[in-house]
């Protein structure tokens, strides 16, 4: 009898231990979450992801693991997330980048950026800031336009990539101002910024995170930001609209997405966690150091915002007759 009790106790214990682990599979998250960054390590999206990676364990029992899958201008990594299991354990960080809001207007994509992905949270918006060298005679966009008109010469500008956010913004400015701006594409933001730092072009554009070290060093003068409102990371720099040029772009948006079929409660959990991270003091400090303004939006607002940004870029591309063919 006694033995029977002991053995049934053992069985009960074993079952008791087994059941919670079986149920725990349902309680999200029960294992580390893979965050796919579709760009190379060390870039601005990667830095944002690593800031999240650092703060994430404060608010979640499972860590996030950053996996860089660069290639095809971001398409390779994004497609990987689109095709992965929609269980919330594979996320895409950088949702709203050039290959989401600009490229679909210019070329065929292997997936539908908006139907195949579910927006989770917006984390930041990387505006386009237009700069010139510290020794330049331009102190505002107006100076630059006046010079170009008086001398009847083209303005040269380095831009990170062809048909990228910086290229479109500066091309649009040239059209609105009625001057000829030659945009010279490079193989990424760092190259473009270095070329301006060497004084080889008259102006250049970049995200605040790319140009901040040079502004701090007194090597660059920021002339304008291209957002509709001022950028919190460059509060003293007027917008193009403030300076009388009716151009705005959304730069590069940085949010999080999951495969479209991810369960709603998982998306809600993820969104709530990202919200807590965006409100965390340590994260705020980190983002100031990275010159990436926190611009949190929840899932629903972010999805709507992306549609707007996508439509705005579509209109600009059509108006400017930009193509890559």
């Amino acid at each position, binding site marked *: 009898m006694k033995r029977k009790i002991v053995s049934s106790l053992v069985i009960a214990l074993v079952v008791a231990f087994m059941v919670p682990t079986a149920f725990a599979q349902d309680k999200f998250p029960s294992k580390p979450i893979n965050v796919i960054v579709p760009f*190379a*390590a*060390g*870039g601005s999206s*990667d*830095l944002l992801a*690593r*800031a999240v*990676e*650092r703060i994430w364990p404060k608010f979640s029992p499972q860590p996030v693991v*950053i*996996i*860089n*899958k*660069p*290639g*095809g*201008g971001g*398409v*390779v990594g994004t*497609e990987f997330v689109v095709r992965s299991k929609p269980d919330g354990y594979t996320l895409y960080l950088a949702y709203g980048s050039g290959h989401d809001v600009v490229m679909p207007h*210019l070329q065929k994509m*292997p997936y539908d950026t908006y139907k195949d992905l579910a927006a989770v949270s917006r984390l930041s918006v990387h505006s386009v800031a237009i700069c010139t060298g510290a020794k330049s005679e331009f102190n505002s966009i107006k100076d630059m336009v006046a010079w170009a008109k008086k001398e009847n010469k*083209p303005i*040269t500008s380095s831009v990170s*990539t*062809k*048909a990228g956010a910086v290229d479109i913004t500066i091309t649009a400015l040239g059209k609105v101002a009625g001057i000829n701006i*030659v945009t*010279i*594409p*490079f*193989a990424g933001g*760092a*190259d473009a*910024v*270095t*070329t301006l*730092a*060497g*004084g*080889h*072009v008259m102006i250049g554009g970049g995200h605040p995170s790319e140009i*901040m*070290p*040079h502004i*701090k*060093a007194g*090597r660059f003068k920021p002339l304008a930001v291209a957002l509709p409102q001022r950028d919190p990371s460059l509060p003293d720099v007027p917008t193009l609209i403030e300076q009388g040029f009716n151009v705005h772009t959304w730069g590069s948006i940085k949010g999080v997405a999951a495969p479209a079929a991810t369960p709603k409660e998982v998306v809600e959990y993820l969104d709530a966690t990202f919200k807590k991270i965006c409100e965390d003091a340590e994260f705020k*400090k*980190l983002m100031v*150091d*990275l010159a990436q303004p926190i611009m949190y939006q929840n899932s629903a607002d972010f999805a709507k915002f992306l549609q707007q940004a996508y439509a705005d870029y579509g209109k600009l591309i059509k108006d400017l007759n930009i193509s*890559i*063919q």
Partner: protein
Amino acid sequence: MGIFDGIISGFGVALTPMNLLFGFLGALIGTAIGVLPGLGPAATIALLLPITYSIPSPVPAVILMAGIYYGAMYGGSTTSILLNLPGEAASVVTCIDGYKMAQKGRAGAALGIAAIGSFIAGTVAVVGLTLFAPPIAEFALGFGPPEKFALALLGLLMAVTLSGDSTTKGLIIMVLGLLFGTVGIDPISGKSRFDFGVIELQSGFDFVTLAVGVFGVGEIFYNLEQQGAAEIVTTKVGQVFPKMTDWIKARMAILRGTLVGFFIGIIPGGGAVIASLVSYAVEKKVSKHPEEFGQGAIEGVAGPESANNAASSASFIPLLTLGIPSNASIAMIFACLLIKGVTPGPFLIVEHADVFWGVIASMYIGNVMLIILNLPLVGIWVQLLRVPYSILAPVVILFTMIGSYSIANQAFDLYTLIAFGVLGYALRKLKFEAGPLPLAFILGPMIEGAMRQSLLMSGGSFAIFFTRPISMTIVALFALFVMGQIIVSVRRSSRCARVQKAA
């Protein structure tokens, strides 16, 4: 704070037990990933970045990552010499003469000279970094698109010297390299070229995959076919340390390699890979016996291995003084500093003197650790050649696959690795020297991009290449080089004609 006070305080920082430990770890990990083919410093640093979150100060984290980066340059030569398999991108040219030396039973001498050359070059470059960092950084910024175009063109001219006996075959290989370089998104037009609808090809081929495939995997395929020959190679090991005659031959090569590496290392977009390739070309050009190159000339190992170390140390100059990351590994160190709340740039030396001087001091110590670590290892590595090829070959293939996968975390790179392996095998069979392939592959896109960027800058006028001082100087060098070559060949052919007449 003057330079002297700065470096003294830097040693104060770098010699604390914690920082010494991290410096040693960096040197150790760097050597290991340098030895493992395909696994490069950039991927390793990315992998280790989360570990540094828990370290409160940025100094040990950066000391660790810097150690991994320049440590990889020490280890990179090992498999290049022993197996014709570049352990690191910057050790591709080391294969050419290093492997021939190993086949002749001189693996120990090659490994020894590589380690010592690395030490000398690394230390000299850190001295340069200590003394002249800010003015040199300003000079490097002067390299815009026209200068890069001229430099890359000069480099391509030198690539011809990497070809073996037949210049025609060398040119064919160069064109092949240029063609591979055109695959992917063209940065100027934004259009994707030769991708055949494959998204992975839009970012082009990866340099490491190409080099490891053509040299390493191709060599293994070739050796598997020639069972007997492979066995002979693996039983000859030879003496471990370089002879006196080796020293005399290699000493100027080390010096020239250091200078070449240092100057290429500071140019944005330069770096250790191009430095090693250019150094090899320079050695072959200045040598009194260029016919020995490709047959196991020790200068062909000493020069490039010194150059890649000097370049890796020198590439810290634009990072620390301007906040400009000049290559992927340095970009990761840049990221690490930013995450730690330290912005690299002109104010680093003022705002974070402990980081600036601490890292520089740690590089002196790191180089000493690396030479102490690597010289005894030479004896152990050469024993690797005693491992039967039937075991060695699959293990090596496995590591190259892990390495290739780690570059972009995608399976596609495994297929390209094998494809390049087959190409490398075919080239061996057809007696082509693959040397110019990687150089043309890297320089082709640089030449094309920089030329089109320059012409956009000038509104289409080619005068931009001749009116800027640095660019004009390089173009003049190029012209001298070509003229010299023409004069030499004209003289040779007229001498031949005279000899024929006499006969």
